[in-house]
């Protein structure tokens, strides 16, 4: 998979994929030398490299596969490391930092997935335009003005986006994106507040408590002021009578 993913940058053509899958030098060996003999990191790298399988599909599929493969690698290779129980004085802080790293990955993966979903209508519109141009060529009709083709393309693109946006797949992806963004932000805020507590600066949590109290007090004051005002005007009316 990884090799296939790297294919566009190696300059190899699809037909030559099999032959060109081997990197120009033994990267795995080179990196192992850098990392030193043995150890978990080397094992992970070996596993990462061996996990890859050439697919020979289009860029869209390769990209999608790459995200999926990376998520699988992360969940099996990295996530357990972040979940190793922390001990000692810095246990709480370290745990929060690890959680942030984990949430960051989930956020990144969701963003990638979402971006890829958004790129699908673009690819489809290009494919449609290609078909349209092929049709014109087969008919022997000359190509129209650039603006005409642009107008057609933007309409096609718009329609593909509308189809995507109405799909269940998109709605789920959007929900996931928002949830993961929120989760990452909350965890990030948590870590930030952990550090801010060392400084003479109020944290958001502390400010929110004050805001909540302020909100409640203001509301009560406003309601009381309204009631008093009504009573005063009622009293004034009575006095007039």
């Amino acid at each position, binding site marked *: 998979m990884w090799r296939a993913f790297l294919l566009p940058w190696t300059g190899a053509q699809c037909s030559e994929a099999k032959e060109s899958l081997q990197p120009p030098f033994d990267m795995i060996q080179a990196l192992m030398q850098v990392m030193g003999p043995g150890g978990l990191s080397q094992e992970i790298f070996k596993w990462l490299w061996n996990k890859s399988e050439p697919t020979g599909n289009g860029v869209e599929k390769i990209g999608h596969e790459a995200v999926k493969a990376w998520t699988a690698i992360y969940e099996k290779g990295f996530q357990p490391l972040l979940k190793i129980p922390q001990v000692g004085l810095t246990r709480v802080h370290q745990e929060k930092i690890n959680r942030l790293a984990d949430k960051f990955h989930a956020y990144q993966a969701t963003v990638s997935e979402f971006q890829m979903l958004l790129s699908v209508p673009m690819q489809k519109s290009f494919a449609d335009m290609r078909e349209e141009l092929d049709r014109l060529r087969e008919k022997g009709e000359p190509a129209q003005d650039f603006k005409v083709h642009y107008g057609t393309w933007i309409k096609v693109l718009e329609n593909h986006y509308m189809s995507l946006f*109405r799909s269940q797949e998109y709605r789920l992806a959007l929900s996931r994106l928002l949830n993961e963004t929120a989760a990452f932000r909350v965890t990030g805020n948590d870590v930030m507040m952990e550090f801010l507590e060392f400084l003479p600066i109020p944290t958001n949590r502390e400010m929110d408590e004050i805001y909540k109290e302020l909100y409640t007090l203001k509301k009560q004051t406003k309601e009381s002021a309204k009631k008093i005002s009504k009573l005063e005007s009622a009293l004034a009316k009575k006095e007039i009578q």
Partner: protein
Amino acid sequence: MNAWEMPVNDIMTNWLKGVENARERILKSKDVLLGPLDTEIAKTPYDVVYEEDRIKLKHYRLTSGKQVQTPLLIVYALINRETMLDLQPGRSVVQHFMNMGVDLYMVDWGYPTRKDRYLTIDDHVNGYMDNVVDFIRDRHGIQNINLMGICMGGTFSIIYSALHPEKIKNLVTTVAPSNFDTDQGLLHLWTRGMDLGRIIEAYGNMPGDLLNLCFLLLNPARLVIDKYISFFENMDDKQFIENFVRMEKWIFDSPDVPGETIRQFIEDCYQKNLLIQSRMEVGGNRVDLKNITMPLLNIYSKFDHLVPPGACDLLTSKVGSRDVEDLCIETGHIGIYVSSKSQKQFTPKIVEWLKQRENAAESESTIDAEAENAGRQTVAEAEPVSGHWPEQGPMTGKTAPESKASPKKKKTLVKTRAAA
């Protein structure tokens, strides 16, 4: 050369022919972009007559004789800013109202900060809005005022009118969503499975930039690509650039929305659709639409991709008023306020409608007569909602389609054809 390259080459050859023109345009655009540009928005002078927390009440000084005695209060949405109603000279809803002798007030919701995150719909409707309405009533020494709500501000106005009907003389709702159970708009689909509580927990308020991103995603082909292609093509046109920049200024001037308010709005309205069923609760009181007994003019756009016709056209059949009118305009969500064609009819229609109802007793008989003459008009099928923003177009002169779900009412609805 392969089969694919041939037509592409043709296109590019054609395109290159236009390059010389493009070069000239770019050279000319240098003068436009580097020269003085008038891109200021909201230029109509006003006085701030009331302030409370972050909100301000704008009062526009009348430029002509008062033709509608009862002042009109405009309540804009919490999303984006009310400056849209005064975007550019000559295409300003505010100026049109003033020129037609309307004593105009407008709520400026300001820019909520983190301390505003706990403000609810109740605080906006029964708090700020009620205080503003009371202020205007006291100032003019009148029992009730005219109220016009826009988009989310329209929903607030519906809620307000149901909770305080004695304070509202006439209600005008424009592109105001009231029925959220529709598949016409993408927002309605997207919000169904959304857990907004998590976003609010994370951000405190709903970030304006996040909302803007969502709005751009409603139609990226037009709003992210085509719009800027059009900008490039017209870079040498000073007036075009000025108007374009004004619109950009407005679109990306997006205050955050108070967290609790947007959470309640999404959950109670978009997800549970409580408002149209008269089951929504605000400040401990049920919002019963039957309490809306004042005349109601309900205006919406045919090509609105944010608040589609299906989100608006049920309202008139659910309120308690005998005097209701639906008006569907062939334009988009923003085009209804800024397109020159729409402006020629949108504001005059409202002013004329208000004038007719200046004297309640007099209007009652007029309305009954109108109702007898007009009756229910045949309704036209709504076209699919396109994603143009802003969409410009003429008024249809057609009434909106009525929902099959709406019960046949004995009372007469004045569903007139707009005098296009």
